């Protein structure tokens, strides 16, 4: 394993050495320039006081570090190729006390203070330079914090205060230092593979537009705070995504994507498997463009394989996080940064059938011999997570919590995985296990669906095999989806939807959307399969976890069975479709 520490001396005073890896219980001060600089400037920051304003009660420095290689291609030609390494610092300075501080205010996290032209954060571990950066970042952050708390106090004077929640939760100090690896990747080889994979689409002239993208990254988060927590948590991911778009004769645009995840490039699927997955996706898109339009439907829907896990990832897990409305946001400004959980206030209530258990477990690293994608040792706030029983026998037992107190809960359970709004952290799941005690063989589910149709005199039922989550939609489409739904958050579009006639025959249909599908619908799960799909994805805070929709992503994994849900509604999308191009596509040469 390689460490990133580069030798550099400034003025000969600080001889920095390439470091070994520090154990989790290191007692001595590590001779690590990054940690040393963070520690030393935190010590100074605690003594900060502007005129007669209060000194900080909590100081935390974090540095996100990432080294990445990305390459994209279209029809056998590279579109872009990039290697990058950067560090992105963040300084959290809290004034006031745990009960009332500058946080949880619309102005929290806004830079009121001086901004220095610091440019990019140093990549070389020069102790004096790092201290200089932390010094100036601290100065900006402290000035912003004292400004924010005074504005917050002024705003509070005009507000009727309901329940008084503390602004910040205590956490035990943690020392957990793991190595961050440097990226080693054969760029030429991967560029060649991506190029070759993108050329698969040359065999599908009906695919109007397509791309294959690869992103490989190594990095992690350095964290030191004034409570004595020091952590360094590595994070790595490799992701290969193929996207394709086709157009139906009536103009409707159809799209699909195939995404492959691994912790590093070496563990991505083999070429043969990638080719198979991408070809299948290309065939699906072409089939969709030739499929009939779906019609209004109300009745049972079977979510098979990956689609079952996608439903839990989207409809359940996104509601396991409680958000707090910051002071000054005002009421009725819906659709903003704070979307309330549909499970808010439902602690102890039944949210799934009583045969279901849901556990989030970042500590588990492997499942049935396969590495789990969502594991971690310590979260973005330096809190160590434990396995968390979220739902027991269908009853809601807990939420995913950060250090931000929310109604009914104070104290993190180590689920801060993304930067949130207003200077907070956002929680998300890690490895989410969904299990049911009364599962039936997966193949039985289709039979059950047909039985239901028979008894209810319906000509057909619906099977969904892929949802658009995380979504690869364009921004216009997302705006339509978010805007078009009344009440509750909309659910992403089902991509692969099949009518199943009572004789067992299947027919692919296009252009359907769910209506009124929300977390309550999950109480109506009629049956679950004994299969368990492992669905890996990059979560973010954007609607539908839209790919590219937010700057930060977290590796996440949902392990769930196929599910049959009663009484869902689907309706045809009402969208304007562009005409077909006047000019026919250019011939493809092989």
């Amino acid at each position: 394993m390689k460490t990133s520490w580069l030798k550099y001396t400034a003025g000969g005073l600080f001889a920095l050495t390439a470091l070994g890896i520090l154990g989790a219980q290191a007692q001595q001060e590590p001779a690590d320039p990054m940690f040393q600089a963070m520690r030393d400037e935190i010590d100074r920051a605690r003594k900060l006081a502007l005129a007669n304003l209060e000194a900080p009660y909590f100081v935390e420095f974090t540095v996100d570090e990432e080294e990445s290689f990305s390459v994209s291609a279209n029809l056998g030609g590279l579109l872009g190729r990039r290697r990058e390494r950067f560090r992105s610092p963040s300084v959290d300075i809290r004034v006031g006390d745990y009960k009332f501080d500058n946080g949880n205010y619309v102005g929290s996290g806004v830079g009121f203070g001086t901004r220095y032209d610091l440019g990019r954060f140093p990549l070389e571990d020069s102790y004096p330079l790092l201290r200089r950066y932390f010094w100036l970042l601290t100065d900006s952050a402290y000035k912003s914090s004292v400004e924010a708390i005074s504005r917050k106090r002024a705003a509070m004077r005009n507000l009727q205060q309901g329940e008084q929640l503390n602004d910040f939760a205590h956490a035990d100090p943690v020392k957990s230092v793991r190595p961050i690896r440097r990226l080693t990747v054969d760029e030429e080889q991967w560029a060649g593979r991506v190029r070759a994979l993108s050329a698969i689409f040359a065999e599908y002239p009906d695919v109007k537009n397509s791309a294959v993208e690869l992103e490989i990254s190594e990095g992690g988060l350095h964290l030191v705070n004034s409570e004595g927590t020091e952590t360094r948590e590595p994070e790595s991911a490799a992701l290969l995504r193929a996207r394709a778009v086709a157009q139906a004769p009536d103009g409707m645009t159809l799209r699909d994507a195939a995404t492959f995840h691994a912790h590093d490039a070496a563990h991505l699927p083999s070429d043969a498997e990638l080719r198979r997955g991408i070809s299948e996706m290309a065939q699906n898109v072409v089939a969709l463009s030739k499929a009939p339009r779906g019609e209004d439907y109300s009745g049972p829907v079977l979510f098979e394989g990956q689609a079952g896990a996608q439903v839990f990832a989207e409809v359940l897990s996104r509601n396991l996080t409680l958000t707090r409305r910051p002071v000054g946001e005002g009421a009725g400004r819906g659709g903003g940064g704070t979307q309330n959980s549909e499970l808010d206030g439902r602690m102890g209530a039944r949210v799934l059938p009583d045969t279901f258990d849901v556990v989030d477990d970042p500590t588990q690293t492997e499942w049935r011999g396969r590495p789990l994608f969502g594991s971690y040792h310590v979260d973005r706030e330096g809190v160590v997570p434990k396995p968390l029983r979220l739902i027991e026998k269908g009853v809601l037992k807990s939420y995913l919590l950060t250090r931000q107190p929310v109604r009914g809960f104070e104290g993190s359970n180590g689920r801060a995985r993304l930067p949130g709004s207003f200077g907070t952290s956002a929680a998300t799941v890690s490895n989410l296990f969904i299990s049911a005690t009364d599962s039936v063989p997966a193949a039985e589910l289709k039979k059950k669906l047909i039985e239901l149709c028979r008894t209810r005199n319906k000509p057909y039922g619906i099977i969904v095999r892929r949802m658009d989550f995380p979504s690869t939609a364009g921004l216009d489409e997302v705006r339509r989806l978010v805007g078009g739904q009344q009440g509750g958050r909309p659910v992403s579009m089902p991509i692969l939807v099949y009518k199943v006639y009572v004789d067992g025959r299947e027919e692919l249909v296009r252009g359907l959307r769910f209506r009124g599908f929300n977390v309550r619908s999950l109480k109506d799960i009629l049956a679950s399969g004994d299969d368990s799909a492992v669905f890996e994805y990059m979560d973010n805070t954007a609607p539908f976890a839209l790919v590219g929709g937010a700057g930060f992503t977290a590796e996440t994994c949902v392990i769930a069975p196929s599910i049959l849900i009663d009484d869902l509604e689907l309706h045809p999308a009402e969208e304007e479709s562009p005409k077909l191009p006047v000019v026919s596509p250019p011939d493809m040469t092989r």
Partner: protein
Amino acid sequence: MYCLPLLGLVASNAPAQPTVLLDAMSQELNRNFSALKEKADPPPYYLSYEITEQEFRSVSGTMGTVDATSGGKSRALDVSIRVGTPKLDNYHRVRGDRGQFTSGAITTFEDNVNSIKRRLWLETDRAYRAAAERLIRIKTNTQVKVAEADDSDDFSTEAPATSVQMPPKLKFTEAQWQEKIRRYSGRFQNYQSVLTSHVSVVSQTDTRYLVNSEGSRLAHGRGFARIVISASSKAADGTDVSSFETFEAVDESGLPDDKIVLAAIDRVANDVSSLLKAPEAQPFVGPAIFSGRAAGVFFHEIFGHRVEGHRQKDESEGQTFTKSVNTKVLPDFLSVVFDPTRKKVNGIDLNGWYDYDDEGVKGRAITAVDKGVLKTFLMSRSPIAGFPVSNGHGRRQPGLEVVSRQSNLLVESTNAVSDARLRQMLLDEVKKQGKPYGLYFRDITGGFTTTQRAGLQAFKVIPVIVYRVYADGRPDELVRGADIVGTPLSSFSKIIATSDKQEVFNGYCGAESGSVPVSAVAPAILVSEIEIEKKAKSNDRPPLLPEPTSMEASKGGAR
């Protein structure tokens, strides 16, 4: 994990093959153009494809360390499609509203014909729809029916151009630049009063490939290399002070040697240190000298933008000079030339040269002002009354629509005196006007000017280094926080004389069609009256805590 959009790219060593790309472009152009002419309603009468290939490498650093290295290669596609007739087409301006049809779509940077052709086809389809929609809207727009003052055509007729001249391959010795950037940026460790400082180098080639339905077929381009030095600090009263210097050349071999760069770093650092101690400028009206570089920026902002052809036709524009052709607009000892064919002045590479503009018209020199008299405008293929053709100044940044832009602006003077004489003339003017001092503008970072009618027809330029030049023989005094304000017509009438030495300002100009490389070359000018006002300033305090002691201890110069 932090995600960045997939845009930048890394250099490839494949030799440039202009023919593969150009052939694919013309084949697809002909196929799309003839099919659209035959089947589409309204049919297009003009189609062009321009692909801009950019390859770059860069290194940046601070305080003796490298903080980023970057590089990439990319191609962006701009489709121009015109429906209607040259008399009235989809590009017709309606009271300031311009059409935007191109998107600068990312296109493969490899010579893969399948991928290139697909992208051309998709983008042609997209641009055609937008063009047809806007033409229909324009035709039903009542505003067009109101007689426009200038009813010239929307598109000029030009002879097709054919030329394939590839620029030299990108050269960048990265290891050497890393070492230099460490050394250069480390120099700032000698200056304790500087809070932040950066030194960067970038080397780039731009290659443009253009085909159109009139038969043009072009490949041309050039290199750009640049060193940027910047530093900033904060004065005790909260004022942010900064200074910078840049060096430009066509490639890395033209960049200056260590001695010159280190001297520039010392200058920038000393400027910042001096600015920290300098008194705040007071509002002032009186005589001043602009250094040649400052005068170049002044002319670029205040004069250059007002002779851009498209502004003369747009009725939302101020049209300062529209009706001034063949009349005196500057003192008769001044001429202004725009010359995209000029590559060097006094041995310094100019930033604003090119062989062909972004409409495939060969760049040519124009004398906009001859001995004070306005002769012509900067023209793209959008004609204006009296100027039916382009003079090769239609330019854009990829992804935006072409408008007329500046190239290399050269101010020429027949009333040129030595620098010493010019200074004496300033002092005489100060005494004559009974002022305690005049001003000397050494460096101007840039500025902005409003040409729109709806706004104030004024300009503001932002000088960084301004001295008071006292009449009583006291040494010149640096002041901080001044902005120059004024109105264009009155400012030109106040130019009294110029120096006899031309200086070069190289930079990038931003306007409707994005950022384009330009130069401004001018002698120092003496003006009898200029107005400065106080700059808006921050009220923040300087850092509350002293500099980390470790940093101070480590000072003492480069290793």
